[in-house]
């Protein structure tokens, strides 16, 4: 039995007819067509599927589509601030080479944006623990941490 769910995704209202067992991740990727959010493990252990649910980061593979009725969801496709305006984190990730294969990148960006929303000036250690739920198999994290630090600095200096 499908259920009708109304939800706002990246500022746009959607009405979706969903089977109750389907994950938010599958709904975003397959029903809404937002494939920027990645499936790394599907069991809540890699963070590749991180999106913001009412401003809080969640593993979208662990959330059911039918649970999100009335909520606001932000995915990587909505992080950008305009057609030509990247989020400062996106810009910093590019400048710092924080993506190699790029498969983990959307999840890290969503997690980091939530981190900076909550704590605009995190220490390096706070960053490392803040993103400890996300796996990157390529970079060794150094450049991801540096990018998040740089974005926080830019924000503080009002550059972004």
């Amino acid at each position, binding site marked *: 039995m499908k259920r009708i769910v109304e939800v706002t995704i990246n500022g746009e209202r959607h009405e979706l007819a969903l089977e109750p067992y389907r994950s938010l991740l599958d709904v975003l990727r397959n029903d809404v067509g937002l494939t920027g959010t990645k499936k790394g493990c599907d069991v809540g252990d890699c963070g590749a599927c991180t999106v913001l649910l009412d401003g809080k980061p969640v593993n979208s593979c662990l959330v059911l589509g039918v649970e999100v009725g009335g909520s606001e969801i932000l995915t990587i496709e909505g992080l950008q601030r305009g057609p030509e305006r990247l989020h400062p984190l996106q810009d910093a*990730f590019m400048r710092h080479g924080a*993506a190699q294969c790029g498969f983990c990148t959307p999840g890290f960006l969503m997690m980091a944006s939530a981190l900076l929303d909550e704590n605009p000036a995190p220490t390096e250690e706070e960053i490392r623990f803040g993103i400890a739920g996300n796996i990157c198999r390529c970079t*060794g994290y150094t450049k991801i941490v540096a990018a998040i630090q740089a974005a926080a600095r830019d924000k503080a200096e009002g550059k972004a």
Partner: protein
Amino acid sequence: MNEPRLVAADLPAHGGVGVALRHESAHLHVAGEATYIDDMREARGTLHAAFGLSARAHARIGALDLAPVRAAPGVVAVLTAADIPGANNVGAVLHDDPILADGEVQYLGQPLFLVLAETVDQARRAARLAQVDYQELPAILTVEEALARGSFVLPTVTLERGDAQAAIARAPHRLKGALDIGGQEHFYLEGQIAYALPREDGGMLVYNSTQHPGEAQARIAHALGVELHRVAVECRRMGGGFGGKETQGTLPAAAAAIAARHTGRPVKLRYDRDDDMLITGKRHNFRVEYEVGFDGAGSILGLDFVFASQCGFSADLSGPVNDRAVMHADNAYFLPHVRIVSHRCRTHTQSNTAFRGFGGPQGMVAIETVIEAIARHLGLDPLAVRRANFYGPGRDVTPYAMQVEDFVADRLCDEVAKSSDYGARRAAIRAWNAASPVIKRGIALTPVKFGISFTSTFFNQAAALVHVYAADGTVLLNHGGTEMGQGLFTKVAQVVAQEFGIDVDRVRVSASDTARVPNASATAASSGSDLNGMAAQAAAREIKARLVAFAAERFGVAPEAVRFAGNAVEVGDVQRLSFAELVNLAYHGRVQLWASGFYRTPKIHYDPKTLRGRPFYYFAYGAAVSEVAIDTLTGETKCLRVDILHDVGRSLNPAIDLGQVEGGFVQGAGWLTSEELRWSDAGALQTHAPSTYKIPVASDVPADFRARLWSRGENVEESVHGSKAVGEPPLMLAISVFLAIRDAVAAAGDGRREPRLDAPATPEAVLRAVEALRAGGETQGGGA
């Protein structure tokens, strides 16, 4: 931005060779717009596939009742081995890797049948409904059992020089020991995937996350029973590979293609993560035994190694992987009398495969552990023992008879010892350990010398296509290499931009595609930019030569007077025009504006029977110092500081190279400290998800992490702009972490006895080692 640039700028072109340019897909990565295969818009009628997996390690299949699977909702077809029109094999070397098990299963997790359904969910649910009558057969699950039963995928190989046993017997000091080195799951973030679309006239197009599209193409064609020219395999990018998609991406590709042929519909097969970990092979785990004889300075006089690796149920790449382990058992050290025996054990487990380093890391862990054992036995600084054994003048021939002509490990070790303050810190650690009963610290400095080239000489070839479009002077580049995040496409684009003197954003790299460049080798052995960079450079140079000849004639100057720089072409002092203008003129002058380039690595030769020759074009080097602290009450380990100096020759792209160094190191540290694979007594992999298999996260990486590229790096051989390969070698820098932990554990004893600590050095393993040492029990090495 695609308007032709009609005015030549005076600025130099942006993004040539040596520039710390960002990854060519960076803007797509950060926007979520980089398309991986599972992100592609699905064609009408696409079916989704899932494998039914064996639930036994070794059994004959008495009966396979698939009726309940066929009856499940959404199921369109269920295929077994009998439905494969051609060869039921994806084995790359031997033909021993079935696509679907036929009559007998050889490991728990082996694909037995393939379900096709309208949705992923339906396919996966249905795959669990089969009734399988397993008639169990005895299963060999460990290296020990395989050795005892003489179970091997390939014959044992011995590399020998001089008389190791006699030299050991004569030596003033002798040690004997053993070490187990665990395997490693690749955990590429993007799992294995293929998407097959049937084409007219028996054709098949397969999108495949693979490091070797050409191999996939051949296996698909053979499985379908069609000629290779009907099959095209394409890969724009992978979400990580690390060797795990060198051969093992081929299985989903062949299966999806068979299913697409069978149903006439597009078929996507994406492994669920659990299935991925159950089906695919990993880094080989090794059992190492050593016996070494040495003098009072720690100089090795004779060394006898016995390696036994777990290959799993089939040969896959186990032959060359184990050969490479043997060829890296010297690392940076001259071994006058040496014997290395290499057993390739057949077990009823996943077929172990390529993984960054390809056997080299296991060989290197072995010799570096021996070096540390010698140092502890003699009470010397391990760095002094390393120096006593380094290759050098008159002692520069490897056990496989290759002369080492470019040795710099000694210089790297000296420099990193200095910059990391190794000597003073070792003294400080000794003082700390004397005063600290619970927390012990350890330090290790290890070099890396890694041979670059495929040991199968014929693989060392590459081809590229360069197109220049007349209407706007933009360049399209295609080569046989694949992009898995390592930055290959970026580097090769830089090489081409450099030749033409144009901005790198005027060069685009298109997806690896067997229909464009045939017979391409795997992107592996760290050779991607060496091989494809040279091939692309050759193609660009050919076009450039034609443009030069054209311009010289047209404007009546000598060819030497035609220069390409800053997106412009200077034709003596007669003319200065933009690259696009010249290209356009040349087109109208009927000049061919595309070319193919080919490269094969010179000088190399190697006889796999005798294990002798010059398998490597050159060596890549590095050195690292790691310091750790362990808690002797809990076994908890913390890496405190890492200093790395790595030689990439003259870097094509320092940003990308440094990223490879950092990422490789962390992946290696994971392998040796936290990533532990466990199988049950029934052969079921217990660690088949990241919840039970511990991959390093950001908080596991030492905050004090100082990685540098060696500014004096050169390649003595002629390589693309003097660069060196960088994909694999840095992984082995992490051996310093493992040995630093052993150093700390040894400090929990009297500092002289060798701890019994295998890899990975998990907290449990560290705790066990500390307790064994303190109880005065069995240790790993002992005087012989």
